[in-house]
């Protein structure tokens, strides 16, 4: 083992910085940007709490596929679409409040399971290229979704409410008002502490989900997923049904994303029928990566750190941009730039780190063989 300690001789601090380079970069950025923006602490805390409640569920839905070695699941867009379909039916049937939310979830779940099954089956045929495949699959299903909503609803699929349908009698309107369920979860059990309102209801749902994810890793299925994630061949040799395990991880992720999107939209209060789901995958993944996750490892703390840093940057950047350059658009530009940029950088960093690890391994192997030969010579 002595050769290993040699290659890891770098100070613990250096190692910490290297492995958490992304979140540290963002913290440094924020240290400069927050004072520049001139926002009050109360405002920022309020915003962050709202956004944590809004986005956590979606980001957490990414964790299980990472565990199963399928990378970052851009396919959560599929779950988001299922959730929106659930909400459309809920609006049409006029169910309001918490029962409405539950109904939307109930309708969305089977659709999410089917889409997850489809995605899982396809991703099993694209082993090693899951991320790009799930992204393209998202675009493809988006086409089918839009076709269904635009031409199918009101004609083939019974939707009757005039508030939802386009004046021509079929197809769903571009924007739907969710006033009937707006913030019902947030207001379910909300407390105020000195101007800061905390939606305890939503947070307890999120905490419940975190406990579920943690518990899930302790189950046989969770253990199988970790095994499959690290080495599919070894897992298969041990008799684990690799394809089924991977499909299950995608299904769970898609269903969670469906719930996540419903929670997200009830907070926003409107659906952009044709766009709301578009960026769900990208933003959730960017947030997770900024929280210090990688393609192969993502934890619950990564989720919360990531959402906090990512959204603080979002809130602060436009104002800071305006103060600095006199232009608010720079912030909006920054928002897109950051989310795509961070995904690109994280993927490149990951590939680079793998290469370094391989090199290190080779050096270690060489050192070990040399040591063995020397031992032989001495003995």
């Amino acid at each position, binding site marked *: 083992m002595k050769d290993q300690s040699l290659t890891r001789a770098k100070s613990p601090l250096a190692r910490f910085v290297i492995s958490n380079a992304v979140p540290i970069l963002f913290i440094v950025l924020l240290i400069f940007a927050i004072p520049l923006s001139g926002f009050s602490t109360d405002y920022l805390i309020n915003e962050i709490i709202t956004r944590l409640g809004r986005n956590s569920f979606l980001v957490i839905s990414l964790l299980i596929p990472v565990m199963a070695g399928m990378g970052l699941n851009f396919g959560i867009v599929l779950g988001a679409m299922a959730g929106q379909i659930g909400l459309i039916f809920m609006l049409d049937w006029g169910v309001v409040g918490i029962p409405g939310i539950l109904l939307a979830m109930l309708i969305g779940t089977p659709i999410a399971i089917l889409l997850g099954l489809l995605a899982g089956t396809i991703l099993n045929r694209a082993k090693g290229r899951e991320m790009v495949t799930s992204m393209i699959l998202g675009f493809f299903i988006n086409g089918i979704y839009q076709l269904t909503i635009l031409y199918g609803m009101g004609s083939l699929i019974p939707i009757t409410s005039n508030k939802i349908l386009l004046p021509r009698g079929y197809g769903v309107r571009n924007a739907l008002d969710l006033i009937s369920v707006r913030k019902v979860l947030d207001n379910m059990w909300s407390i105020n502490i000195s101007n800061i309102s905390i939606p305890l209801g939503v947070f307890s749902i999120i905490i419940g989900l975190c406990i579920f994810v943690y*518990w899930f890793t302790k*189950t046989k299925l969770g253990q199988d997923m970790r095994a499959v994630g*690290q080495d599919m*061949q070894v897992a298969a040799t041990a008799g684990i049904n690799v394809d089924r395990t991977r499909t299950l991880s995608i299904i769970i992720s898609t269903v969670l994303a469906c719930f996540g999107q419903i929670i997200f939209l009830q907070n926003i209060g409107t659906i952009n029928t044709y766009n709301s789901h578009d960026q769900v995958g990208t933003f959730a993944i960017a947030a997770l990566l900024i929280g210090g996750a990688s393609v192969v490892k993502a934890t619950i703390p990564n989720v919360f750190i990531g959402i906090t840093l990512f959204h603080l940057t979002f809130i602060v950047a436009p104002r800071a941009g305006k103060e600095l350059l006199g232009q608010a658009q720079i912030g909006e530009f920054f928002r897109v730039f950051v989310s795509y940029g961070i995904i690109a950088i994280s993927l490149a960093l990951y590939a680079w780190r793998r290469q370094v690890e391989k090199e290190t391994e080779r050096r270690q192997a*060489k050192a070990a063989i040399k040591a063995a030969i020397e*031992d032989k010579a001495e003995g």
Partner: protein
Amino acid sequence: MDEKNYLLRMEGINKDFFGNQVLKDVTLRVAKGEIVGLVGENGAGKSTLMNILFGLPVIHQTGGYQGKIYLEDKEVNFASPFEAIEAGIGMVHQEFILIPGFTATENILLNRESTKYNIFVEVFGERLKTLNRQEMHKRAVSAIEKLEVQLNPDMVVSEMPVGHRQFTEIAREMDRKSTKLLVLDEPTAVLTESEAETMLKAARKLANLGLSIIFISHRLSEVLAISDRLIILRDGQVVRELESSRTTPREVASLMVGREIKEGLSKKSKEFEKSEIVLEIKDLWVDMPGEQVNGVDLQVRKGEILGIGGLAGQGKLGIANGIMGLFPAEGEVVYRDEKLPLNNPVRVLGKGIAFVSEDRRGVGLLLDEPIDLNIVFTAMQIQGRFIKKLMGGLIKWRDDKEIARVAREYVDSLQIKCVSEKQNAKELSGGNQQKICLAKAFVLEPDLLFVSEPTRGIDVGAKSVVLETLKRQNREHGTTIVMTSSELEELRSICDRIAIVSEGKIVGILPPTADPADFGLLMLGEQEEVKASV
């Protein structure tokens, strides 16, 4: 030994792959608590025999086998490895089948974890049972105790020394209550000496507990030390069964390598003792998966044909691939008093060194291109030949006429069977493809030529043409050739000296006229035996 005492009997096993007989009437019997060593060259049929025992899909897909297998006097025919494992046969492979990020415990109990019931099981099924960590720890500890080795059950595999990984594999087989027979396939190949010793002791202990073991290894001294009985396979047949205590390494090695070559061995080796050294390899390390080279020193003399032999996976292929820059290499290679840049194929080719790869279809050929282009491709790229220059070199144009002419020349001289030189390379047989690869190297007019496994997978007729061509190139053009091959006979028929590689190092260089047993001993890492006898 009494017939009834045998735990496993494989009787009269025959197996062919598409008409190519790989096992002929092989009988293997293992008694309870006995360790049987299985020895043989690559291709002798050891792995096929074990694949049959385990019911691997590859056996069924190629028409099954003839013969009978009895486990505890009951006839068995396993349809899959899972059935074999179920019946009590455990296998420990040369490559570790472990999850790197899991602890020893998790690996030992992989997919056989102890679990606890919870309410979700009713809705979502068995797989949502939670793991019972305490119980798992207990089981792992008891499996490890059987081996009587030091192994921390909570250590993550990726942080373990190699020896501990091997113990984890064996402990996994031990956790199965039903395991009666353990197949150890080269269990010590990656271990250090002291680790290997512990490993052998553990195997002995298991045998004393009543477990039967089939031990496959290329380290002859180990097989001799540990096994009660030794079975030697050669060309798919059992050539001899020996009591380990009543034999010598030399006897085993000569049985294993066997055959004498009838006709003309190359005998001019003396001529080269004084010729200059064209290539000097010093402490070369190559990271080629499965063919690791661990510090090779070798000198190649001008005008000779140097053979590199050895068993598969010992690193002989890595040498040429490393020097040519196809796999990451470290060390010093001096060519004509000049240091060769490593990891840079273009520079090496530019120095007049050519390479015929063992990976004919992958590295050797552009399968979807015609023969003529294949032949001149490297010459165009590296030497800028077969190129017409227009507008003072601004535009470079392929000289198709000249290319076709040269290609036709080689098609004739190497007897490449094809419709014309415009046929695509992938449409030709293996032997003719190999001839194209040779032509491609010859076009470069190299001073030094590396050839790897030139006759692998080609028919007998083409084999002799290929070897004859190499010989002629050496004689007529004075090309120095370094030929790597798994076939000792082939090396002995054309080489002037033969270096044998074992465990990534050169263990000895012999003239082709040496005793076949000496080659065998070197391949099995018994260089001391050879020195004693020469």
